[in-house]
């Protein structure tokens, strides 16, 4: 079963604006290096990964529990997960279907049909798994590389998919590509590289907002820590929870453009914190209202002005009873998602290498960065 919520197709609201989500997370590639099946004739240097499993569940959980948009409430969550496992939902655990190409084609059709029932719908597409890029961005399902069939038969042409979705009535379309965009040399040697766009559109089709957010810039890799949510997934959830929020009248709102800016800023701070070559490529392409939040949140990235000082600094950040602490020797900067507002930053040096300081700063979204200490 790929429909995680609501329980049945009949319960899906199709006569009013709704967000319909399609989440694909692939953490099992039997035909790639380390897989359990016959190896692909050209594995392209791709191997098993664990992060998509955690990321897919985190995205689904956020949609089911945190997504808030009175103008376009949640309508459905379609999810494919490899390896398949139970997905928590308001109706209890639902067994997810594996993300094979055939299952993706079927689920995509159902999702697109739902999305097409109302122009006010939001179409939400999230893919987490292996990706490669050549003349287009390709996303790889579980059974990519099956040596029994044409190597590229089981692959998604994401660029084609995004264009093809112009034929869908939903005027706000959000695509999240949490996958690599590099071009392995082995891919350059391949002829007839072609993926399945899953849908098509005509010259006359268009949508007012087709926003794509890539986990990395063209030609580069996307990353995540073993057995955890990817860095892009983390950044996205922080942004949706308020880091990307801007004030619109009485409400704090995340829209397609504010999300793009906040994602880029957040990924830059995660890159500093984790010392990884993280990047991000937002392409909002139209204004769309995504989410409402109670209040703004901020990625606080606090460190000293030099690495030498960072190494010996004891940094304490506090707001009321909430404190963040990074003693000497722990990695800097501190990068945490916190509430916006006034925070006290205390920087001390137990070894008296530099003069200690305490300052009050106002954290405003999306990012608060650094203090001039020492």
């Amino acid at each position: 079963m790929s429909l995680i919520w609501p329980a049945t197709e009949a319960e899906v609201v199709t006569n009013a604006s709704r967000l319909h989500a399609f989440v694909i997370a692939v953490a099992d590639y039997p035909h790639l290096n380390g897989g359990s099946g016959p190896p692909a004739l050209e594995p392209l240097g791709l191997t098993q990964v664990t992060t998509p499993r955690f990321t897919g569940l985190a995205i689904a959980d956020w949609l089911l529990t945190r997504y808030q948009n009175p103008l376009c409430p949640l309508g459905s969550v379609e999810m494919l997960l490899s390896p398949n496992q139970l997905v928590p939902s308001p109706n209890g655990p639902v067994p997810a279907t594996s993300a094979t190409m055939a299952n993706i084609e079927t689920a995509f059709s159902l999702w697109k049909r739902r999305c097409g029932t109302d122009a006010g719908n939001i179409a939400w597409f999230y893919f987490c798994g292996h990706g490669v890029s050549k003349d287009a961005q390709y996303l790889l399902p579980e059974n990519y590389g099956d040596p029994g069939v044409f190597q590229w038969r089981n692959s998604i042409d994401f660029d084609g998919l995004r264009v093809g979705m112009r034929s869908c009535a939903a005027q706000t379309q959000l695509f999240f590509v949490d996958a690599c965009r590099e071009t392995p040399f082995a891919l350059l040697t391949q002829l007839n590289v072609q993926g399945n766009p899953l849908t098509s559109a005509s010259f006359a089709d268009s949508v007012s907002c087709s926003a794509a957010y890539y986990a990395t810039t063209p030609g580069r890799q996307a990353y995540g820590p073993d057995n955890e949510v990817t860095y892009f997934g983390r950044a996205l959830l922080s942004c949706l929870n308020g880091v990307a929020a801007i004030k619109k009248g009485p409400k704090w709102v995340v829209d397609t453009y504010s999300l793009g800016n906040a994602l880029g800023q957040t990924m830059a701070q995660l890159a500093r914190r984790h010392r990884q070559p993280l990047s991000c490529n937002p392409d909002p392409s139209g204004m769309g209202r995504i989410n409402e939040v109670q209040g703004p949140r901020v990625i606080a990235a606090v460190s000293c002005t030099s690495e030498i000082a960072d190494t010996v600094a004891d940094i304490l950040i506090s707001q009321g009873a909430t404190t963040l602490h990074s003693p000497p020797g722990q990695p800097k900067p501190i990068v945490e998602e916190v509430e916006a507002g006034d925070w006290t930053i205390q920087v001390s040096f137990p070894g008296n290498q530099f003069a200690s300081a305490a300052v009050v700063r106002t954290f405003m979204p999306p990012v608060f960065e650094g203090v001039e200490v020492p």
Partner: protein
Amino acid sequence: MPVVFVHGVNTRKTEPGYAARLGLIDRFVQKHLAGATLGGVAINSLSPAFPYWGDLATTFAWNMASLPTGHVNALGPAINNRLRPLIAAFDDDLSNSASAKQQPLLTVAKTKTLPHAVDLISALLLETAAENQADVVADFIVVAHGYAEANPSPAWLATLTTDEQLLNRLVTEAKSSAPPGVQALGVLDNVLNPLAAAGASFKAAIQSAATSILDRSGDFASTKLLAWQRRPLNETLGRFFGDIFIYLDTRGDKAAPGPIPTLILDALDAVKNDAPANDPLIVIGHSLGGVICFDLFSYFRPELTVDLFVTVGSQVSHFEEIKRFKTSNPAIHAPQKAPTPANIKRWINIFDEVDIFSYACDQVFDRVIDFEYDTQTYVIKAHGAYFEQDRFYTRLRARIDAL
């Protein structure tokens, strides 16, 4: 303990793979000599110094324009000259190389052993990888050799059908002991791109050669194939003799050492000065590097104590036979033995019967230990193959332990 590696003929920084080869020697030395002792003294400093004298050696005024070119011109990229000896060796290695052209690397692994294939892959990588990939290439070769030596015929080989699968599997196995950390949603290791490029280059070259060279029967292998690979062979031989002439002509004398002796002696002095007092000195001389070092130790700097002198694929005994050293004494000949200079405390000489530039020493010199090593390669390749093979260092370590 300082280790100094003195390169031989035909070594130029401008040649593909120069930096990667140095990186490879550095890693292999550190891997295999760690924990070794010499005369009861632990070997502590294992990162070799590499004095480079290639810029002082032979140049060709017409860039070897005197070499005859092939008979056929292609209106497109020709087969890389530097791959030609590898292709010829591939042809020698297999009973039917033309049929193996579709998956040449996998064919070698299956019909011979995985270490044979890794030798070939390593040679390809060193010939084709870009300079900025030197570290990743050297790291991979060290690990891949270690894996292949421990698993010469892994069961998974039978499940593979393409070269690309083999290269991917090798990297996967090499990475299997890597610590957990951050995953990329893409290629598993930086070495995959240079590996894929090397594999693709070789397959394309094999397939191109197969249509015109390898699958012709009769005398082709012994005549046309030799001509086909003549240019890279001639380049090697040309530089070999050229570098020797240059050294002999310019080495100077004790009062006024020439540029090459000066450069190497300065490097030896530098590592000795940087090392703790009385720390022993290991000098590894490859090919003409061994000859030059012998000249330095016997004539230019007899007061320099060398605790272990290792000559590899070298011509020291040949030069002594023709009395070309400054200290050579024409009165000493068979059945006598020439004396090893007293400042050389221990001397191991390593040769491969297939390496036509290598010579045995123990019939010419006293106090030298000869050690025959089979690179399992072919005539031209053997001369440079020693230092690219994990098993070479394993055996060298065993010899050092036995001293």
